[in-house]
């Protein structure tokens, strides 16, 4: 049984992202990329499901993007995934287009479970997994902090972090589940993993093979930095704090 993990490459967490002078794009020259940290949680979970020997025997990682995204697939392979797929596509596809491309991959690969990070660290929209579930007509569970597959891999008991607390649901498989921060702690991909990764299969699927995609219908037309916040004041005592707050009529 196969688990498909969808993955996006995102700029490294520590990178300082600057806006291009014309405001229309970001200064991405020299920026280094990583696997989206939330997708890493999904890769790690898929690996754990496989290693637990409960019916999952293959972990396939897929990304939709240009060749520059290949190293991040290799990172996922270095963590221990078995196979990597890239749908060769331009970087500006919108969420629905990406979801449709992934649907094409799902129809080819026929996984029993699709895992994804709950959102991407850069864009933070978090739409693609739910859109994919909708296109496939599959049930979905989001913001999972715990996933347990049933014997026989027919369903999954998922604990979801919702606004009200922790919600436990059961989804029949195949399903789409998104990973939240407390799902696991991803392993480190170091040298021996990277060496083994180079020998694992990496396939590329041209976007056109998965259908007609047309033009993106959502795009960013402008970026601007946050307006600066005026500096605050330091008070020296609780009494001064209380005075400042009553002045603002907060106490």
């Amino acid at each position, binding site marked *: 049984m196969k688990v498909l993990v969808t993955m996006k490459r995102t*700029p490294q967490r520590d990178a300082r*992202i600057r806006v291009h002078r014309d405001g229309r794009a970001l200064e991405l020259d020299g920026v280094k990329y990583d696997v989206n940290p939330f997708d890493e949680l999904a890769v790690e979970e898929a690996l754990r499901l496989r290693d637990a020997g409960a019916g999952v025997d293959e972990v396939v990682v897929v990304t939709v993007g240009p060749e520059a995204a290949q190293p991040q697939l290799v990172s996922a392979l270095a963590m221990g995934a078995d196979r990597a797929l890239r749908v060769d596509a331009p970087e500006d596809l919108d*969420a*629905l287009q990406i979801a449709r491309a992934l649907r094409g991959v799902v129809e080819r690969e026929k996984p029993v479970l699709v895992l994804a990070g709950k*959102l991407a*660290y*850069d*864009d*933070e*929209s*978090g*739409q693609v997994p*739910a*859109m994919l*579930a*909708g296109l496939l007509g599959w*049930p*979905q*569970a989001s*913001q999972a*902090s715990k996933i347990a597959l049933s014997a026989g891999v027919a369903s999954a008991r998922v604990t979801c*972090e*919702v*606004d*009200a*607390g*922790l*919600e*436990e*649901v*059961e*989804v*029949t498989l195949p*399903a789409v589940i998104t990973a939240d*921060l*407390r799902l696991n702690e991803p392993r480190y991909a170091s040298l021996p993993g990277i060496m083994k990764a180079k020998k694992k299969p990496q396939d590329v699927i041209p976007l056109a093979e998965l259908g007609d995609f047309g033009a993106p*219908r*959502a*795009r*960013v*037309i*402008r*970026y*601007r*930095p*946050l307006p600066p*916040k005026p500096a605050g*004041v*330091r*008070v*020296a*005592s*609780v009494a*001064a*704090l*209380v005075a400042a*707050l009553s002045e*603002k009529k*907060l*106490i």
Partner: protein
Amino acid sequence: MSDVLVVIGPATSPLRKADRAAVGFGRAAAGALGGHCDVLLVGAGSAAAAEESAALGARRVHTASGAGLETYTAEGFAALVAAFLDARDYRLIAAATASGSREYLPRLAALIDAPMASDVLAIESLDDERAVFTRAVFVGNLLASVELSGPRVLATCRASAFDTPETSSSKSAIEAFAPPPGATAHDGKRFVALHQAKSERPDLKEASIVVSVGRGTRGPADGIPLCERLADAFGAALGATRAVVDAGWLPNEYQVGQTGKIVAPELYVAIGLSGSIQHIAGMRNSKTIVAINKDPEAPIFEIADVGLVADLFDAVPALTAAVESRRG
């Protein structure tokens, strides 16, 4: 087509502040389009919420409950709204950003093949051809203007960015919507249980004052009870950093931050928390930010309106006493 639909689901009675703000967003959008704003209440609580919703100045309030909608599921709710939209024309379908809408609105977008913008902060331009919204990206450090094309678009809106509409004297018409049989059936998902910490305190997303605790409080046996007493003195909600939730000191629903709840109360009191970028993304738009921390170089002081460098174990009880005495 210039009408806006605001989806409130699962509908609660009383309505959540976020849902009321979503109606505010919807009305503003409808104003820009020169059209009307309708409300669709989904779920078992819709009938109870109809009365309150009808006083928010929408044209019509629809309720939808029944088979497949007894408990919230993304599958059921998305299918319901899709069925509702089947014979109706809306330019914009909106909902407040929440753990539920994060799931069902994109699913709906896929079902009706329309683009969506997540967690918008402002409407930049909206007419029959273009829809441009502002949203935050890169852990809230940059603002992006997203343009959605096509006749129909969707958006979740950040509650703290929009005003709740004044209670209107005229009442909207209330209509029940009955989906076609089987439209909301979903065998694939079964609700098992909801584990919720019972609390007398206001909800984190509803409260006008939030007292938020970080690692400096040293845990439930140490500083957290002190902060809880302060929260009670203020009548505030309690919030927490990711580190506190990871350590198991408070449940996940208290987490404020990029991956927790994004709040913007009148007053946010940050105690014993250093202010990681991810946490700040969740509270930077609070009207007044107060920080109490022993470390004068903690990043939280950079965005605090009022900062006090002190040991929270001394400062918090003193502040609590002052607040209690002033409240009488």
